[in-house]
C-alpha cells in the first residue's frame, strides 16, 4: 500500500473518531436544550437578571385590577413559584387540584424545611374561583400576612407563603 494512502487513512481515521466525539457532544447539547423547555431554568435566569425589589413592585398591579370585579375577568391561568428553592416553576391552571407539600406525589414537591408533607392545596370551586386550603400543616400557610384557617379564595397575584416558598396565581 502506498505511503500516501496510509497517511490519508491514518489522519482520516482520527478525523472520523473526533467527528464522533463532536457529534456526541452535540447530542448532549441538544439534550440540555430539551430539558430547558421546562421553563424553570429560564424563569430563574429571568428572575436573577431583575433585582427582587422590582419583582415585588410589579406584583400589586394585577391585584388592584382584580380586586373590584371578583371572579371571571382576571381568571388566573398559571401558578408561579416566586421565591424559594423552586423559584421560577410554573404550573398551568386547568381546573385541576394542585397539591403542595414535601410528599413525592404532590403536584409541587416543596423542598422546604418548613413545609409539611401534605401542606396545602389549591383548587377551583364551582364558579372557577381558586381556593387555597391549608391541610393541617405544622407551620401554616399564609395568604399575604394572614395564616389560613379556612379555605380562602386567592386573589390574582396575592402571595401564598409556605415556609420560604412564595406562590402566586398569575394571568
Amino acid at each position, binding site marked *: 500500500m502506498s505511503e500516501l494512502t496510509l497517511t490519508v487513512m491514518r489522519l482520516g481515521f482520527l478525523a472520523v473518531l473526533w467527528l464522533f466525539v463532536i457529534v456526541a457532544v452535540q447530542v448532549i447539547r441538544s439534550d440540555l436544550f430539551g430539558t430547558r423547555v421546562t421553563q424553570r431554568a429560564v424563569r430563574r435566569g429571568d428572575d436573577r437578571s431583575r433585582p427582587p425589589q422590582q419583582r415585588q413592585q410589579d406584583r400589586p398591579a394585577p391585584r388592584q385590577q382584580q380586586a373590584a370585579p371578583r371572579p371571571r375577568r382576571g381568571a388566573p391561568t398559571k401558578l408561579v413559584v416566586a421565591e424559594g428553592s423552586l423559584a421560577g416553576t410554573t404550573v398551568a391552571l386547568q381546573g385541576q387540584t394542585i397539591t403542595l407539600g414535601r410528599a413525592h*406525589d404532590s403536584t409541587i414537591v416543596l423542598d422546604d424545611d418548613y413545609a409539611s408533607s401534605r401542606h396545602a392545596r389549591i383548587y377551583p370551586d364551582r364558579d372557577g374561583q381558586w381556593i387555597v386550603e391549608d391541610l393541617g400543616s405544622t407551620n401554616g400557610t399564609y395568604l399575604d400576612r394572614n395564616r389560613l384557617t379556612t379555605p380562602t379564595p386567592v386573589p390574582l397575584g396575592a402571595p401564598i407563603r409556605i415556609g420560604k416558598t412564595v406562590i402566586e396565581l398569575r394571568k
Partner: protein
Amino acid sequence: MSTSNTTITSIGAPNRRNTELALLVFAVAIPVFAYANVGLAKNNSVPAGLLGYGLGLGALAGIAHLLVRKFAPYADPLMLPIATLLNGLGLVLIWRLDQEPRLGKAMAPNQLLWSTLGVALFVAVLVFLKDHRILQRYTYISMFLSLALLVAPVFFPAVYGARIWITLPGIGSLQPGEFAKIIITVFFAGYLMVKRDALALASRRFMGLYLPRGRDLGPILVIWAMSMLILVFETDLGTSLLFFGLFVIMLYVATERTSWIVFGLLLSAGGAAVVGSAEPHVKVRVQDWLHPLKLAANGGVTETAQSMYAFGSGGLFGSGLGQGYSRLIGGIAPKSDYILATVGEELGLAGLMAVLLLYALLIERGIRTALAARDPFGKLLAIGLSGAFALQVFVVAGGVTGLIPLTGMTMPFLAQGGSSVIANWALVAILLRISDTARRPAPSPAPSPDAEATQVVRSQ
C-alpha cells in the same frame, strides 16, 4: 410536554431513539474503517472478513438498539453508541495485535464471542429488569454475594502475581471482581440510602470540616479494612482502589460531606503506603512506577518504560493503525492491560484523547442520569456505577501512562478479557434502565383522593 405540569419534573427531553440509531451506524462504521485500515497496512489488502465482521457488529448493535427501543424507549441516546464504538475499537485493536505472531495465539475471535455474550446480558438486563428499584430488595444479599466474589480468588493460584482470577476447569478463567463491582454498588446504594441521614447529620464542625462521630466511622473503616485485605491477599492494587474509592464516592454523594473524601484519601494513602512497602508484588510495581527507566530484575527494560516508549513514538498523530511496534511491549498483557499503549502509539495523542473523551462522555451520561433520577436509590446506583467505571478507567489509564503504579485491571470494553466486557455491558444496561425511568415523561398527576373526600363547605 403535553401539559405544563412537566415543568416541575424537569423532564422535557424527547425520546431520542433515532439519534441513537444514527450514532450507532456511525459507531459501527468507525471500527469497520479501522479494520480495513489495519488490513491495508499489515497485509496490503482489505481483510477478508471485513463484510462479515461489519455485519456481525452491526447486527449486535442493531439487536441491542431494537430492544432498547422496545424496553427502554426514553433511555439516554449516547451510552449504547459509545459502548458499541469502544467495544468495536477494542476488537479491531486485539485483531491488530493478533497479526503479530510474537504475541501468541489469536484472541479476537474469543473476544468477539465474549462481546456477543456481553450484548446478550445487556439485552437480558433490559428485558428482565423492569425497574431498577427491584434491586433495592436485594441489598444485603448483594453484600454477601459481592463479598463471596471478592474473596473467592484467594483460593485459586495467583496468575502473574495477582489473585484476581477464578479458574474453572474446561471453561476458562473468570475475573469475579468485575461482577462484584456492579453487585457491591447495589449494596452500597441500598445501604447508604437508609443510613445516610445518620452519617450526614450527626457531626461536629472542626476547621471547616464536618467531622463524623466516632461510631459513624464504622462502615468506612470496615470497607477500608476489606480493601486492605484484598490488597494484601490478592496483591491487586486496582481492585482494592476501586472498591474503596467507590465507597468513598457514594458516601460523599449520599451525605454531601467533604470530610468523607478527606478521610478516604488519608486512609487509602496510609494503607497503600504501608502495603506498598511491605508486600513484594506491590513493591515491585511501585518501584517500576518510581523508577521506570531502571532495569528490571531480569535485566530487561521495565514494562512501564516500554509503554512510555510506545506513547512517545506515537507522538501527536500516531504511526497509523497496524504500523506501530507495540508488539515490542514485552511481558504478559499487550492485549489487555497495555492496549492503551497501542492506542497511544498507533493513533497518537489525538486518538488517545478521543478514546479517553469517549469514556468521559459515557461517564458524564451516567452522572447526568444520576442527577435526573427521581428516587434516591436510583441516584446512588447510577452515581456508583458511573463512579466505578470512572475509577476503573482512571486506574488503568493512570497505570499505563505512569501516573500511578500499574495494576491488573482492564480498560472497560477496549481491553481483551471476557469478564470485563460482559460485566461492563451489564453495567451500561443498568444505567440505561435508570435513565429510561429518569427521562420518561411524568404521568399527569392523578386526582388527589383528598380532593374528593373533603368537601368544601362555604358558609356564605
